[in-house]
């Protein structure tokens, strides 16, 4: 056995030991978690009337733990900025063979997907749904177009596209800092306006998330356009 092999088997042994140790620790901590726990659900139920929406998950995402979501949208934007640093992508030829079935199916599917996205956005107020789900669905329409008919998207690196991409973060930040003017704290929506504000944030975020995910799929910055 030469030196490299010895090193590799030592490394493998170390890895196995590490994984067993780590796994053991995780299982051990799982064993000690109380079997029944309400967690924070009673607290959430208590504060639901103040949140402005009827869906618990939406209330947590955009009201109770709005700070998380604000940073999350910032992370999404940061990932896009990272992708933008790479040279511009080419978006002029289809990735699939020209095929009448795929072309016409895309033609029918894209409007329906956009409609569903809007419906899911609206649903977020009172049931499972919201900005991220709607944004992901919207992105699926974009991904479909990027694959099948990129020329019909006509994506250009213009100020309008940049505005759509930053809109979610911009609106969310503005609304988050708005309460400071009236002496409140960050992300403390006035009770009367909470529902409207959440819908506004979600609508802006949906567009931004949809376009961001589509551009991340496409691979980065679209070719430059005349502003």
């Amino acid at each position: 056995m030469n030196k490299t092999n010895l090193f590799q088997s030592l490394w493998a042994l170390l890895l196995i030991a590490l994984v067993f140790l780590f796994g053991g620790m995780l299982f051990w901590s799982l064993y000690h978690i109380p079997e029944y726990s309400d967690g924070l659900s009673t607290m959430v139920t208590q504060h639901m009337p103040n949140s402005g929406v009827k869906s618990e998950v939406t209330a947590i995402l955009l009201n109770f733990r709005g700070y998380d979501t604000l940073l999350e949208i910032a992370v999404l934007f940061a990932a896009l900025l990272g992708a933008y640093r790479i040279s511009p992508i080419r978006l002029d030829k289809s990735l699939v063979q020209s095929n009448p079935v795929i072309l016409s199916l895309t033609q029918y599917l894209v409007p329906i997907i956009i409609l569903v996205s809007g419906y899911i956005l609206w649903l977020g107020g009172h049931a499972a749904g919201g900005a991220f789900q709607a944004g992901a669905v919207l992105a699926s329409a974009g991904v479909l177009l990027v694959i099948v008919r990129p020329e019909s998207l006509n994506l250009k690196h213009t100020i309008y596209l940049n505005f759509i991409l930053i809109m979610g973060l911009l609106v969310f930040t503005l609304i988050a800092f708005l309460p400071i003017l009236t002496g409140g704290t960050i992300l403390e929506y006035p009770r009367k306006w909470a529902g409207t504000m959440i819908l506004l944030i979600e609508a802006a975020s949906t567009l931004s998330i949809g376009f961001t995910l589509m551009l991340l799929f496409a691979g980065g910055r679209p070719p430059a356009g005349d502003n």
Partner: protein
Amino acid sequence: MNLPFFYACFGILIFLIGLIGLAIKPNILKKLISLNVMGSGIFLVFVALAKRAGLSADPVPHAMVLTGLVVSVSATALGVILAIRVKQIYGKAELPEDSR
């Protein structure tokens, strides 16, 4: 041992599988897939343990998983874009072997 814990155990197993993959696969794409497998395991643990609250599951872990999903998607996308760039420059999407 009830059902939430049963699922959480499998979540930990999935996480460990991803951890091993992350450590032993030199290909960047496989590392990214391993990271996603690890993430899926963590999400499974979260969602499973949320069910401990009884009939209506605790919504806070659900919201956290939703947050995590988007972050994981964006991180993976950026990782894949960088992997493509590495492949363009070095000819293969692999990390260099240890220099020893």
